[in-house]
C-alpha cells in the first residue's frame, strides 16, 4: 500500500496545466472567488453612489482613478460597473466558480471514479474560463470603458457605441470573453454528464447517487441545452456590430443620423437571450441546492427527506426552466396569449420549489443537528430560497409584473433567491469540503461569525429593495434624486448602502479564514463530518486516481444516518453507515 512512488512532475504540470480534477476544482474556486470579490467591490462602489448620490468619496478615487473624478462616479461609469458586476456575479462566480469547483471536486470523488472522463477537456475548460475572466477584466480598461448595457446586453443599446461609450471596444471584449466562457462551460458540462453516466463505481446505481451529483447532472444538462443558444444570440449580435447585418436592428436614428439597418428586431435577441437566461438561474441555483441537501442531511444526522421527490423536483424545475423565458418579456408587447401561457408555466415552478423547501424543513425536524458553519449557511440558504422565492409569484404573474418589472422589486427578488442562495450554497460547500480541497480545516468560530454578519447584512441590503420597487423606483438608475417622487427614498437608500459596506467587510472575515486555513489550518482527518459518501474514504492528501488500490464498491444509498435496529440501537454502532458498508442480512433498505 505504502509503496506509492511520487512522480516528480514539475510545477507547471502539477499546478498550472493540471488535468487532475481536484487541482482543477481549486483553480475554479480561486479564480471564481477572485472574480466574485471584484464583483462585490464593484457593487459596494455603486451602492455608495446610490446611497449618497453626488457625495464625494475621495478614498474611492484612489482605487478608481479617472472613473471617480473628484470622488464622484460618472453616470456611464455607474452603468459599466452595474453591468460588470452582474456579469461577473452570475457567470464568473456562480456559474463557473460554483459549478466548476464542486462538480469537479465531487463528481469523481462521490461516484467513485479516478478522474473525469477527459482530463484534457477538463483542463481546457478551466483555461478557457481563465482566459475569459482575464478578457472580461481587461475590458474595464479599454477606450470607452467596459460594456454598459446591463448584463442582459439588449441591443440596440449594446450594438451602438453612439448610444453609450461602453458599447464600443468594451462590448466587443465582453462578447469575446463570453463566447470563450460558453465554450469553457460546455466542455465542463460534457465531462460532468459523461463522467456521471459512465464512470460510476461498482454498485453505484443512479438511485444511490448523492443529491449533489444529481444536481450537478441536471445543471450540466441544462447548460448543454441552453448555453449554445446564448452563443447563437451573441453571434448574431457580433454580426450586427461588426459586419453590418440587421438581425436585431431596424429604424434607428441616433447621433443625428439614420442608420442603414432595416428589418431586424431587438425582441428576437430577448427571446434568444432569455432562452438561456432563465435556465441560467437554475444553473446557478441547482448546484447550491444539491450541496445543501447533502450538508443538511449529513449535519442533521438524518436521511434527506424525500430523496426521490428531491430528484423529481429538480427534474421538474430543470424542464420547466426551458418554457418560462417569456416572463422576462411581459412588457415587450408580446402577444397577450403568450403572456398568459408564460404566466402559467412560470407559476408552476413554484410547486417543485415548495416541495424542496418542505423537504428541507422536514429533514431538520427531529434531527440531531451539528452546527458547523456549513450547517449555518445551509439553513441560511433555505431561508433565502423562501424569502426570495415567494416574491417570484408577484413577478411571474404577468398581470402584476407590469408595474414592478425592472424596478428594485426585481433586484431584491433575484439577489435573494439566486444571488444569496447560490452564494450561501457555495460558502456551505467550501466550509464542508475544505478538508477535501486543502487537506485542512477552516476555523469554525470565524465561520460562524462570517455567517451571521453575512446574513444580517444581506437582508439589510436586499429586503428593503422590495419597498423601493413597490414605490416604483426603477433599477439601473444612477441616482434617484432627479425625481421628487423618490425624495422619501433617501433614507432607505442610505440604509441599504450602509449594509452593503458591512457585507463587504464581512467577506473579509471569510477571506482571512480561507487563506489562513489553506496554509496553516489544522490538518484534516479523513472524515471530519462523519459523512457516508465515498469522498470520505479517500486519503486526505491528494493523489492521482483518488484511491490507493481498488476503488471501493457501494452497497447502499448515501443517507443511512441514524439507522437503528428494533432495540433502538444504532446499526453498526454509529449514527452513520458508509455507502461502502454491505447491507446486513436482515437489514431493510427502506425502499429508496
Amino acid at each position: 500500500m505504502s509503496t506509492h512512488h511520487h512522480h516528480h512532475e514539475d510545477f507547471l504540470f502539477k499546478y498550472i496545466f493540471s488535468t487532475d480534477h481536484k487541482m482543477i476544482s481549486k483553480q475554479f474556486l480561486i479564480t471564481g472567488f477572485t472574480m466574485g470579490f471584484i464583483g462585490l467591490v464593484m457593487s459596494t462602489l455603486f451602492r455608495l453612489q446610490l446611497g449618497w448620490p453626488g457625495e464625494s468619496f475621495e478614498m474611492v478615487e484612489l482605487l478608481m482613478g479617472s472613473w471617480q473624478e473628484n470622488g464622484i462616479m460618472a453616470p456611464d461609469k455607474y452603468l459599466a460597473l452595474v453591468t460588470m458586476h452582474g456579469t461577473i456575479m452570475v457567470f464568473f462566480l456562480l456559474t463557473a466558480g460554483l459549478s466548476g469547483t464542486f462538480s469537479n471536486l465531487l463528481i469523481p470523488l462521490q461516484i467513485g471514479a479516478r478522474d473525469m472522463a477527459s482530463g484534457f477537456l477538463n483542463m481546457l475548460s478551466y483555461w478557457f474560463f481563465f482566459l475569459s475572466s482575464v478578457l472580461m477584466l481587461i475590458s474595464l480598461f479599454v477606450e470607452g470603458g467596459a460594456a454598459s448595457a446591463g448584463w442582459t446586453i439588449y441591443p440596440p443599446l449594446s450594438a451602438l457605441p453612439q448610444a453609450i461609450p461602453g458599447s464600443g471596444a468594451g462590448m466587443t471584449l465582453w462578447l469575446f470573453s463570453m463566447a470563450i466562457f460558453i465554450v469553457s462551460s460546455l466542455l465542463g458540462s460534457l465531462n460532468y454528464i459523461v463522467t456521471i453516466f459512465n464512470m460510476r463505481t461498482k454498485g453505484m446505481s443512479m438511485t444511490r447517487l448523492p443529491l449533489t451529483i444529481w444536481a450537478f447532472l441536471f445543471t450540466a444538462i441544462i447548460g448543454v441545452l441552453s448555453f449554445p443558444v446564448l452563443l447563437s444570440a451573441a453571434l448574431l449580435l457580433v454580426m450586427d456590430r461588426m459586419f453590418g447585418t440587421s438581425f436585431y436592428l431596424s429604424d434607428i436614428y441616433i447621433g443625428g443620423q439614420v442608420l442603414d439597418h432595416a428589418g431586424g428586431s431587438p425582441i428576437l435577441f430577448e427571446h434568444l437571450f432569455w432562452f438561456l437566461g432563465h435556465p441560467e438561474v437554475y444553473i446557478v441555483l441547482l448546484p447550491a441546492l444539491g450541496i445543501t441537501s447533502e450538508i443538511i442531511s449529513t449535519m442533521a444526522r438524518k436521511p434527506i427527506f424525500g430523496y426521490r421527490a428531491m430528484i423529481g423536483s429538480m427534474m421538474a424545475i430543470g424542464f420547466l426552466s426551458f418554457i418560462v423565458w417569456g416572463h422576462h418579456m411581459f412588457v415587450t408587447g408580446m402577444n397577450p396569449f403568450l403572456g398568459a401561457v408564460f404566466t402559467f408555466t412560470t407559476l408552476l415552478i413554484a410547486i417543485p420549489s415548495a416541495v424542496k423547501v418542505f423537504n428541507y424543513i422536514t429533514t431538520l425536524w427531529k434531527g440531531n443537528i451539528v452546527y458547523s458553519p456549513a450547517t449555518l449557511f445551509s439553513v441560511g440558504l433555505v431561508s433565502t430560497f423562501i424569502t426570495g422565492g415567494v416574491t417570484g409569484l408577484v413577478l411571474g404573474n404577468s398581470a402584476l409584473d407590469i408595474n414592478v418589472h425592472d424596478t428594485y422589486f426585481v433586484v431584491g427578488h433575484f439577489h435573494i433567491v439566486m444571488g444569496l442562495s447560490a452564494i450561501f450554497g457555495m460558502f456551505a460547500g467550501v466550509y464542508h469540503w475544505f478538508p477535501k480541497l486543502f487537506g485542512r480545516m477552516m476555523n469554525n468560530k470565524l465561520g460562524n461569525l462570517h455567517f451571521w454578519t453575512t446574513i444580517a447584512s444581506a437582508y439589510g441590503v436586499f429586503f428593503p429593495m422590495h419597498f423601493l420597487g413597490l414605490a416604483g423606483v426603477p433599477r439601473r438608475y444612477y441616482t434617484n434624486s432627479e425625481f421628487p417622487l423618490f425624495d422619501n427614498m433617501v433614507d432607505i437608500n442610505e440604509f441599504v448602502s450602509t449594509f452593503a459596506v458591512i457585507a463587504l467587510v464581512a467577506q473579509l472575515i471569510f477571506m482571512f479564514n480561507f487563506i489562513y486555513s489553506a496554509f496553516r489550518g489544522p490538518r484534516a482527518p479523513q472524515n471530519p463530518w462523519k459523512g457516508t459518501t465515498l469522498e470520505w474514504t479517500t486519503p486526505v492528501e491528494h493523489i492521482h486516481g483518488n484511491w490507493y488500490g481498488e476503488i471501493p464498491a457501494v452497497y447502499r444509498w448515501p443517507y443511512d444516518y441514524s439507522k437503528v435496529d428494533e432495540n433502538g440501537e444504532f446499526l453498526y454502532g454509529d449514527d452513520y453507515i458508509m455507502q461502502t458498508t454491505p447491507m446486513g442480512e436482515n437489514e431493510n433498505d427502506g425502499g429508496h
Partner: protein
Amino acid sequence: MTVVIVIAVLLVIVTGVQLLKIAELRAKSKGENIWEVKEKDGKFQASLMIVFLIAYMAYFFWQIYAWGDRVLPEPASEHGVPYDFLLNLTLGIISSVFVLTHIFLLYFAYKYAYSAKRKAYHFAHSNKLELIWTIVPSLALTVLILFGLNNWNKIMKPVPAETEHVLLELTGQQFTWTARYAGEDKKLGRSHVTLIEGANATGVDATDEFAKDDKIVKGEFHLPVNVPVQFVFRSIDIIHSAYMPHFRSQMNCVPGVKTQFNFVPTKTTAEMREITGNKDFNYILLCNKICGAAHYNMQMDIVVESKEDYEKWLAEQKSFVE
C-alpha cells in the same frame, strides 16, 4: 492616509493570525480538536437561530410599519384597482408563507441541535406528506393564476375603436419623451426615422393627411379623467420603457416595432394631491429600460384633469403643420 490604512489592515491580519494560533494551542493542550463542533457551541448557534427568527420577523414588520406608506399611493387608473387587489392578495399569501415557513425552519433548527443524549429520527420519506405539500401550493397557485389571467386579459385588450377615447403616441429617444395626440381625425399620421429633421424630431410624415392635425407636445402631457387612453409606443433609437407607476402601467418602446397599452385615468392630479397630502404631487412618466448615461433622468410629467380643462389645454397646443 493610505499608509495609515495599510498599517491598520496589516495589524488586523497579524492579530487575527495570532489569535487563531492561540486558540489552536489551547485546544491542543486540552487534547481537543479545534475544528470539532462541541455540543455547547452547537447549542449556542442553535439559540442564535431563535434570535434570528425573532429579529428577522421583527425586521420584516418594522419595515412594513416604517416604509409601508412609502409605496405607491392608491391606483389612479381603472384597472389599477383589481391590480392592487391582486397584488395585495399575493403579498398577503406570500407573507404568510414566508412567516410560517420561517417559524418552522428556524424553530426546528433551534430545537433539534445536537445532543449526545438523543438520536436523530431516521425518517426518509412519506408519500402522504409529500402529496400534501404538492397539492396545497397547487391550490393556492390556481387561485393566483386564475385571478392573474383574468386581469391580464382585461388589461391587454385594446380600447375598441367605437368607444370614445384619446389616442396618444409616446416616442422615446435618448433621453426625452415626445407625446403626439391624434388630433381631430382621431388618427395618427405615419412616421418614420428617415423623416427626422430639425424640429420634426420624431419623423412624422408631413405628406400624410392624418398627420396634419396631430399635436406634438413635450415636457408634460395632459389626459382627461375617466376617458380611456389608447397609447401607442415608439422609439427612434434604442429600447426605452414607458413606465407610469401611478396608473399601474408599463410598456417597452422598441425601435422598429409599435407597442400599445391602454388605461382609464380615474383621479385628477388635483385629487391625487389631496390623497397623498402632497401639494406638489405630479403624475410621472419614467423611462424604465436601461438606455444610456442619462437613463436615470428621462421623464415627462402627466396632468390628469377634467374633460373641459383637457380640451381647453389641447386646443392651445399647436398642430403639426403649424
